[in-house]
């Protein structure tokens, strides 16, 4: 195993700022970042990654071989919730099992971004297709998770049934999956990036590209603060779920690497695909689940993804997956 790669990843500014944030909370520093700033930073990141991906997609053109990774991503994002649901339903009930499944089927944009920046640091190429894959993988897991819960008898959310509510009942399911704020901004920026191409990118890049890594540091500092605050809730949810939140990414990553190998992805895209499969959502899914599956307990699925899976992927997971990919692609 390539310990140098792990150490190298741990010693980059984004990961160190994440650690600094966690340390601040654990040492009980009163460092805090106003929620408006947190939200501003996340809007920036979604905007920037969306535009960037769209431009790269436009530059590559829609080759047929771009469709394969996209399809693989969507399938993975739909299968994971079903598997997780099967594993957890007995123990935690249908609502929570479905919520956790949706969480792990969907993706973490920040983990993805950190992986991109990891690849850039190594000089490994990656393609805009993966950004499109990321955008497409946000939502199917939400749909699948909620539908599974409904089939298992969990009642749809409605508030009195007058029907004029824009965000309840079955209609709200699709709405939450695709009109969810972060998903909408990401998809929208992707499309705008494709429409405006190189020229639009040139105008926007001094804001969306050059300061990106610096902003990512501040954002990860904040994520560290936020993640560490969830450690207590996580401890209360018990050893099983803690273990689960480490094993799922490893299992998903292994499967993803296998698929990427079979489909003959380039190493950079293989890492990104793996990271998408191994990461869990803490932005798009929790909000959608609160609205479509209010029975699910947010102090289970949110801390699992935010306080375990996310830190694991960002610090150890990414270099680990890369090591495995380097090995496999070399031997193959």
């Amino acid at each position, binding site marked *: 195993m390539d310990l140098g790669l792990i150490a190298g990843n741990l010693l980059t500014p984004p990961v160190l700022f994440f650690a600094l944030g966690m340390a601040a909370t654990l040492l009980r520093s009163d460092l805090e970042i106003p*929620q408006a700033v947190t939200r501003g930073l996340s809007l920036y990141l979604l905007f920037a990654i969306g535009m960037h991906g769209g431009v790269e997609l436009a530059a590559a053109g829609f080759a047929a071989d771009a469709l394969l990774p996209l399809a693989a991503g969507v399938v993975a994002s739909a299968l994971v919730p079903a598997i997780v649901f099967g594993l957890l339903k007995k123990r935690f009930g249908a609502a929570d099992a479905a919520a956790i499944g949706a969480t792990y089927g969907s993706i973490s944009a920040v983990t993805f971004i950190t992986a991109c920046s990891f690849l850039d640091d190594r000089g490994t190429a990656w393609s805009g297709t993966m950004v499109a894959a990321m955008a497409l993988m946000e939502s199917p897991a939400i749909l699948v998770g909620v539908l599974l819960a409904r089939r298992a008898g969990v009642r749809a959310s409605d*508030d009195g049934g007058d029907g004029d509510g824009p965000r309840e009942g079955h209609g709200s399911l699709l709405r939450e999956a695709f009109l969810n704020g972060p998903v909408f901004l990401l998809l929208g920026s992707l499309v705008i990036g494709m429409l405006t191409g190189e020229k639009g990118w040139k105008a926007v890049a001094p804001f969306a590209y050059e300061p990106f890594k610096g902003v990512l540091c501040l954002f990860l500092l904040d994520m560290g603060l936020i993640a560490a605050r969830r450690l207590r*809730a996580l401890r209360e949810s018990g050893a099983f779920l803690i273990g689960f939140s480490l094993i799922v990414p490893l299992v998903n990553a292994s499967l993803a690497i296998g698929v990427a190998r079979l489909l003959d992805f380039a190493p950079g895209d293989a890492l990104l695909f793996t990271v998408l499969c191994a990461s869990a959502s803490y932005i798009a899914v929790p*909000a959608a689940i609160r609205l479509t599956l*209010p029975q699910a307990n947010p*102090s289970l699925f949110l801390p699992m993804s935010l306080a375990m899976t996310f830190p694991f992927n960002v610090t150890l997971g990414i270099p680990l997956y890369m090591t495995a990919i380097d090995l496999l692609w070399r031997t193959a």
Partner: protein
Amino acid sequence: MIPVKRLEIVIDAPHAESITRLLGRHGLSGWTQMRGASGAGERGRRLADEITGVSSNHVIVTTCPPERLDELLEELRALLVRHGGMCLVSDALWLKH
């Protein structure tokens, strides 16, 4: 000065709209809403610190004529049972203007 019932409702940010729609259905067209509240309750701490509003509460203050309170509370209770949250009712005088 008109006697009214003052309602103070705390609810997860994503469900706040359900509350104001509910008020509307009961003919209550006046309310004030404050965002980004943190708190603690039966469902544990809510830290109001992340991106999605899932850990944030909204506080909604409204007034209701005493005679319409009961039917409002009934529906409100159903909503709070499903989504969590809290409602306090007290007496107040509305300064007519």
